[in-house]
């Protein structure tokens, strides 16, 4: 395929994802507000925020890494998008994923996190560092169930290629990993809660300590970049779970519907459960979800 055409479709996909991400964020916040008996923001408020931030003229920076942080962050988000096959069976929408490598995506997530952490770090704000340290600590615990789940489905499908994993789930809804491997799905979905940064795992996002979300130190274009990334990343992560556990998507509609529900799962749990402290969340994550993950593997060994 012509590389220009490819890049064109990639950019188009990116645009779709960005929009769906912004929209979904608005919808979710609306839902949250309604559930808590508030009126809430406008659905399109994320768009407004984004445009507003990009148009602010003053740009303050603490140094080179502060500057590069958002670039890393956005690279992380876009990179995952690039390496992710979006629509099953479509050459056009599988981006640069070739056949979609699960490990690559799993580890590339760190790229953005690292950039963000470094950028916030150079800001010199101690709370940023506190937030990062908590976030990272909790992240280690979040990763473990996910790792077990990934191992479990890798055993199940004897593949680490996302495309192949999706292919294996085609045909019937019962072929979804959700049904063929509910334990792995369970572990992964708990881990997803943490990845999305909602309650009960969102202490790292506490108002003053928000390095993973758009932080207070950043503003203007920087913040705009971060918000862009956030929108993209949430969708792409949901797509990842969709591909792994919920049969993938054969078209954009299916993708939007599935990602909505996947994302909604985290919002739903966040509404229901209160927040953990980090030193509570880590042991919790290392107990039940890990046990589920272990069980998911044992099922396949035995």
């Amino acid at each position, binding site marked *: 395929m012509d590389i220009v055409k490819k890049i064109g479709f990639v950019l188009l996909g990116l645009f779709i994802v960005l929009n769906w991400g912004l929209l979904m964020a608005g919808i979710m916040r609306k839902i949250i507000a309604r559930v808590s008996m508030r009126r809430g923001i406008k659905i399109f408020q994320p768009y407004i925020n984004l445009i507003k931030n990009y148009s602010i003229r003053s740009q303050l920076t603490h140094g080179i890494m502060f500057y590069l942080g958002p670039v890393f962050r956005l690279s992380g988000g876009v990179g995952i998008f690039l390496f992710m096959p979006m629509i099953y069976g479509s050459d056009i929408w599988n981006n640069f994923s070739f056949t979609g490598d699960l490990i690559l995506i799993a580890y590339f997530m760190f790229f953005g996190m690292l950039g963000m952490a*470094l950028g916030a770090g150079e800001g010199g704000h*101690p709370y940023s560092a506190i937030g990062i340290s908590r976030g990272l600590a909790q*992240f280690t615990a979040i990763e473990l169930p996910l790792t077990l789940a990934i191992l479990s489905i890798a055993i199940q499908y004897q593949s680490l290629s996302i495309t192949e994993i999706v292919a294996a789930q085609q045909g019937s809804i019962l072929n979804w990993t959700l049904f063929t491997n509910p334990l792995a799905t369970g572990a992964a979905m708990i881990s997803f809660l943490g990845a999305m940064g909602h309650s009960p795992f969102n202490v790292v996002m506490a108002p003053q300590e928000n390095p993973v979300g758009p932080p207070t130190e950043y503003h203007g274009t920087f913040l705009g*970049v971060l918000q862009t990334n956030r929108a993209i990343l949430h969708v792409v992560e949901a797509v990842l779970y969709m591909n792994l556990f919920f049969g993938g998507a054969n078209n954009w509609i299916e993708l939007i519907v599935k990602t909505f529900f996947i994302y909604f799962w985290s919002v739903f749990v966040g509404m229901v459960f209160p927040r953990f402290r980090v030193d509570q969340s880590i042991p919790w994550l290392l107990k039940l979800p890990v046990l589920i993950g272990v069980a998911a593997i044992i099922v396949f060994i035995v």
Partner: protein
Amino acid sequence: MVSPISSIAVLLGSAFLVGLFKKTSYSFAQMLSLLAIAFPLFVSAQWLIHFIGTSDGAVMLYTAGAKPPFSVSLQIGMAEAFLTLAVNLLGLLSIIYLMKPFKELGVKALALLLILVMGLNVIILSRDIFNIFVFLEIASIALVGLILLGKRKHTYSAGFKYLIAVAIISSFLLVGIAFVYYFGSTLNIDDFVAQNLIVTKGLSTALFLLFIAVLLELKPFPANGWALDLYEAAHPGVGALISGGTATASLYVLYKILPMGADYWSDVLIWVGLISFLGSNILGISQKNANRLLGYSSIGQIGLLVAVIGFSDQLGSHFEAIFFSLFISHFLAKVGLFWLSGWVGKTELTAWSILRTKPWLLLVFGIFLFTLIGFPPFPSFFGKWQLIVDLASEHGFNWIVIILAGSLFEGIYLFRWLGYAIKGEKSTENKPLLDWQTALPIGLFALLIIGAGYVSNQWMPNGQSINLIPVFFILALFVLDFLPAWIKNTISIAGLVVYGYLLYPELSDDTLRLVFAVIFLGGGILTLIAGYSVKGKRAGFFPFALMMFAGLIGLVEADNLLQFFFAWELMTLGSYVLIIRGKRSMLHAYNYMLFSLGGAYLIFMGMAMATAGQSGISLEILRTTAFPGWTYALMAIGFLTKTAALGFHIWLPGAHAEAESDVSPMVSGILLKGGVFGLIVLFLAMGGEQAQANPLVYVLGWLGAITALIGNLIAVFQEDAKKLLAYSSIGNLGYVLFALAFMSNIGWMTAITYSLNHFLFKTLLFLAIGGVVLRVKTHNMHEMGGLIKQMPLSFIAVLIGIITLAGIPPLSGYAGKWLFYNAVIAQGWYFQGAIVFFAGTIAFLYCFKLIYAVFLGQPKDKFRQVKEAPVWYIIPQIILIIGIMVFSARPDLILKPVGELLSGSAYFPTDPLNWESVTASTNLGYWSGYKIMLVIGVMFMVLLGWLLLMSRKAQKIKQFDIVYAGETPFTPGTTHFSHNMFAPLYRAIGFLTLPMITQSWNRVNSTVHDFADSARKIYSGNGQSYLVQILAYVVIVYLILF
């Protein structure tokens, strides 16, 4: 040729003559004594040269115009010539060394020494047991007189104890001789042996008395308190005479009379000798007095030599070479140490730090200690090697265990001592003068050791297979040590480059070895470049650095077990000295050495078991070993101590963290791969199928996984930047171990990728952090902060380093992770795999801490003027970054040939990685470093461009322009959040990092020390108890025997 009898006559005559001189003509007497003792030295040398040059047998010397057995006869052969040469040399140098004390005591004392030397000569030469008895008495009595030299406290009581002990021993000896004569009708050893008597009850008891008395002369543990007291009380110069002189003669007597006894006497000697060796070395552990410690060590070493004599039948044609190398090591090193002790003057071990005022003495001290322990290139290394290999071929594994355990215990106290000397608190007193009388003998003996090392090497079977060129190069560096550092550095680098160039053709086919050769030599060159930043002479650094690299590269080159072990020990020796050079690294280097020593002995034991029943010592024989379980387990554990697997890791953090800035990358980035390479060699030798079937690898896998987790977790909680990196090394080596344990093609690919990566990023990180530490003069990360502005290049290096470490695409660390997943799933080790991945995410935490706490956050006031790291630190970092980039983009350049090698060979033919130009694939997936690099690189550039476009007018603001909850922070110190950064994590899973292993090792340590401390209470100081011990020894041995 001059008859040795004339040396006896000359010595005796001059002794009688010297006694006549008056005080006023003392110097003349002294001159005469020197000449008198030089004469026999010349005679012995002449005979030795004669025997070496020709293949003549021993020559019999008759006295009194009658043939034996009717008259006393002497015999001089190669052994006698050599031993008398040693004794005479010792005598000559003793006169020089003891010149002052001799002068104080007068001419009579000179006569005593002459007579002592004469006596020793006769003991060695004589073939008549009664004659030997008489001259043994002479030697003992002369010693009793000589201990009056340089009078110290309690000399008299020590002398008395010695006298009564000798008296009771000689009583047994005389009774023994009497009955030997009664039953054997002869006093001549050869005649007795020739008669081939039937051993009756009476004769065997007579022989028992004879043997036990000679053994008791050698001060066997535990009937040796009298000797220890004498060592403590006597002038060290006299201690040297006892340890080197009388012991030598008595040992030879034992050897001479051995054919007289029944077969079981060999076994008795072995038992007695080894019990002495082990017991004495254990009890030495708690000893604080240098002279007494030397006594313990002497007794131990002599015990080993006694055992070697007992083994003489089993050792066959190797006996002479083995005995020579072990004997000469003991002789030269122990005597040298005694002499050094005399110069130090104080008896406490801690006082030996005074040696630092004379660096060459420190070097000599090191040579002596390493010789005692048996490190290459010193003679005892070869002796111990061959001894143990030969014992193994007779399946004498129990003996080997005892010998190695004894050596380990010896190492415990000798290296503690060395530590005191190199790093102990400097004593405030004036340094003693070093006159030529002291310097000459000590220096000469040190040189002789090196010569003896060469002889042992050439003499020993297979010894010639060792490539001595690096050793000579290192020796040359020692000679050139007076040059400024940069010249030596250039020479060293040139040496490594040339060596690499010469080696390349040999290795170009064997990619696996080539990878490690690149790590060892290339790493050596890179880290040495950093050394250019050191001004001055940097005395004693380069020889040892090169020694370490020579050892490492020697591992790669090794074709046989001896070469491998030689290289292994050379590496250990070099790295130990490098590590102990750090400011506070006394204890850490000590721990390192003990673990290395223990590990080395396990490897040694494994190798020995492999050689049992097989011919040759090539590495191939590991596969066909008769004891696969033991061989592999022992060797694997040995290598694990070097890779610092959990349980054997406690030496690493301190050793790596406290080392000098440019040494840390050497020992962490490069040295650890030595252990990895060892494991690879072992597994390769085991062969694929055997290895896979071995339960060992399963254990190794778990061990690797847990090591990775715990190592990384502890690293997270470090505040010391270098310690953090050090623990991270433990974790990373855990990955490597885990991957190696897969015993599959892809697993090994993973391990090699990891090894290479770890070399690249850990060297890079240690260099970068080392550069920072060099500037800010602290290891504590929370004292740093905001250094990115001052040290941007170091920051970039660390950034690249941690991205690689954490395995984040696109850099090469990801390659390892990807391979890992594939290997884990293919192997089915899911849980271990999960632990390792968990460890990987934890690694991310300390990566962040490292870069954030040092370079980001709030810059401190005191570091505002800090400059970028020295350019010599930056250059290797740039090279390493380039290396990482190249490896990340084109991993196929290295991994493809390695993979082909692995699948092409017999080891791991199944499930290789498939390569399609730059893309690798397995059944599970595929990976293309090149494409990932390309995609991410382009994307990153685009986004960066975009942001630059959007915010090109970004405005730099001040440090404290931050939103801070309504307050304005005013000190950077309180605003830099970096101490105890991961407190919540610690509260959650910190219990895993409790130093349980350290505590249990400490408990082992204190148990051993307590035991040694209470066990040595048997030496109550009461002369009578010593006699009782001697008596009990005799009776108990008798009862055991009969």
